[in-house]
C-alpha cells in the first residue's frame, strides 16, 4: 500500500474511546448481564422438575433474597408493565423497570428520548385513570410529581444540548416533547371533565412551545448544512395529512454548499420542514392514542363496575 494511504489508516487507528466511556459502558453491561443471568437461572429452575436432588441442592444454596429478586426480575416486572397508580405492582413498573431502562440509555439524546417516553406513559396512565373516574385519587402527590419529573428531566437534556451548541438535536427533542404533550392535552380535554390534570399539562405545552420558538430563532441564524431533500422524502413516505404534504412540498430549500451560502433561506426551509414533521407526528400519535383508549374502553367497562362494587 502507498505511504499516504498507510498514513491515513494509521491515523484512523488512533481514534479512541475515552477511558470514562469505556468504564461507563462496562458498568452498564455488568448491570444488564446480572439481570439476564438471573432471568436465565429462573427459567432453569422452572424447566427442571422440583424433585431432582441436584436442583434441590442448588436451590437451597440460593439465599432467600436472591430467589425473591429472581421472581421480581422476571415474571413480576413483566406483569407490572400494565399496572396503574394504586396497583400493587405500579412501584415495580416505575421504580424498577423504567429506572433500569434509563440506566441503559447513554447519550443525552437517548436519555431525553427515554424520559419523553416515560412522560408519555404517565400521560397514558392519566387517561386510563380519567376513564375509570379515578384520576382525582391518584393525581395529587403521585402522578403529577412523576410526570413533572420526567418532563423536567427531558427539558434539562434539551437545555444541555442547547448549551453545547447542538441546536438541531435540542430542537428535535423539544419538538418530540411538544408533540407528545399537545396530543395528550387534546385527548384529556375530552376525558378529564373535572379538569384535574389538564391545567398543569396545558401550562407545560405552552412552556415547551415557547422553548421551541426560542430555539427556532437561534436556528434561523445558525450555520447548517444538510440534506433537506432526503428528509423531505422520508416524511412524504409516512402516511400524513394532505395539509402536511402540501407544506412539505412547498418547502423549497436552496442548495447550499461552501461556495453558495444561502444560509438564511435554507434555515427557514428547515424550520418549516420541522413544522410539517410535528404536524405529521401529532397526527400519527393521536391516531394511536385513540386506538389504545378505544381498546381500554371496551376492556375496562365491566371491570370498572366490579371495582366499584367491591370497594
Amino acid at each position: 500500500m502507498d505511504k499516504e494511504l498507510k498514513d491515513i489508516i494509521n491515523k484512523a487507528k488512533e481514534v479512541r474511546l475515552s477511558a470514562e466511556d469505556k468504564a461507563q459502558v462496562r458498568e452498564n453491561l455488568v448491570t444488564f448481564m446480572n439481570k439476564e443471568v438471573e432471568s436465565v437461572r429462573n427459567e432453569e429452575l422452572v424447566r427442571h422438575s422440583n424433585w431432582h436432588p441436584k436442583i434441590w441442592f442448588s436451590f437451597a444454596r440460593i439465599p432467600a433474597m436472591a430467589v425473591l429478586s429472581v421472581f421480581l426480575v422476571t415474571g413480576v416486572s413483566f406483569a407490572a408493565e400494565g399496572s396503574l397508580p394504586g396497583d400493587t405492582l405500579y412501584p415495580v413498573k416505575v421504580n424498577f423497570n423504567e429506572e433500569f431502562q434509563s440506566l441503559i440509555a447513554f447519550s443525552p439524546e437517548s436519555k431525553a428520548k427515554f424520559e419523553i417516553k416515560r412522560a408519555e406513559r404517565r400521560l397514558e396512565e392519566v387517561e386510563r385513570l380519567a376513564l375509570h373516574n379515578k384520576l382525582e385519587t391518584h393525581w395529587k402527590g403521585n402522578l403529577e410529581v412523576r410526570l413533572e419529573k420526567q418532563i423536567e428531566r427531558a427539558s434539562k437534556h434539551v437545555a444541555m444540548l442547547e448549551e453545547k451548541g447542538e441546536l438541531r438535536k435540542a430542537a428535535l427533542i423539544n419538538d418530540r416533547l411538544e408533540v407528545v404533550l399537545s396530543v395528550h392535552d387534546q385527548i384529556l380535554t375530552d376525558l378529564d371533565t373535572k379538569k384535574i390534570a389538564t391545567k398543569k399539562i396545558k401550562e407545560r405545552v405552552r412552556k415547551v412551545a415557547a422553548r421551541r420558538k426560542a430555539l427556532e430563532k437561534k436556528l434561523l441564524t445558525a450555520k447548517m448544512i444538510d440534506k433537506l431533500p432526503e428528509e423531505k422524502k422520508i416524511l412524504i413516505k409516512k402516511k400524513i395529512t394532505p395539509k402536511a404534504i402540501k407544506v412539505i412540498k412547498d418547502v423549497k430549500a436552496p442548495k447550499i454548499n461552501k461556495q453558495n451560502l444561502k444560509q438564511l433561506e435554507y434555515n427557514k426551509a428547515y424550520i418549516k420542514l420541522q413544522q410539517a414533521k410535528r404536524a405529521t407526528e401529532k397526527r400519527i400519535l393521536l391516531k394511536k392514542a385513540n386506538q389504545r383508549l378505544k381498546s381500554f374502553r371496551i376492556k375496562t367497562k365491566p371491570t370498572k363496575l366490579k371495582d366499584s362494587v367491591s370497594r
Partner: protein
Amino acid sequence: MQQLDKSQQFLADYESFSEAIFRHCFFRVSDREKARDLMQDTFVKAWQQVTAGADIKNMRAFLYRVANNLIIDEYRKKKTYSLDQMQEAGFELASQDHLKIEKIVEGREALEMLEQLDDKYKEVIIMRYIDDLSPQEIAEVVGESENLVSVRIHRGLVRLRELVNKV
C-alpha cells in the same frame, strides 16, 4: 458456575474488543455518541446470544457481525449526519486526554476521506485495514463470499487512492 465463567469470559472479551468495535462504529456513523451507543448495544445483543446458548466460535467476528447489523438498522432509520454538522456541533475525534490537537485534525482527515467512499466499500475497507480483520472474517460478517469481499477491498482501495491523490 458455568454462567459465571461465561460472564467473566464475556467481560474479558469486552476489554479486548470494545475499543475496536467502537472505532468501527465511529467510522461508519461519524458520530461519537452514536458510536458509543452502538458499541454498547453490540455487547448487549451479543450477551443475549451467549446466554441463549449460541455457539460462537469466533467472538471477534461475531461482535463485528452484530455491530454491522446494528449499523445497517441505524442507516435505515436516518442518515443525516455530515461532517460539517459535526464540526458545527463542536465535534472532536477523540478525547483530548489521549491525543494531541494535531492528531485530532489528522484523524478527521481520515474520516473525511472514508466518508466519500460508497458504503459497501467503506465497510470492507474499515474492517480490513482499520480493524485488521481477514477477508475470510469479513466475509463472515457481511454474509458474502470471500472472493467478493476481496474484490470489494481491492476496488475500495483503488477509489481511496484516487481520493488521496486528488488531495
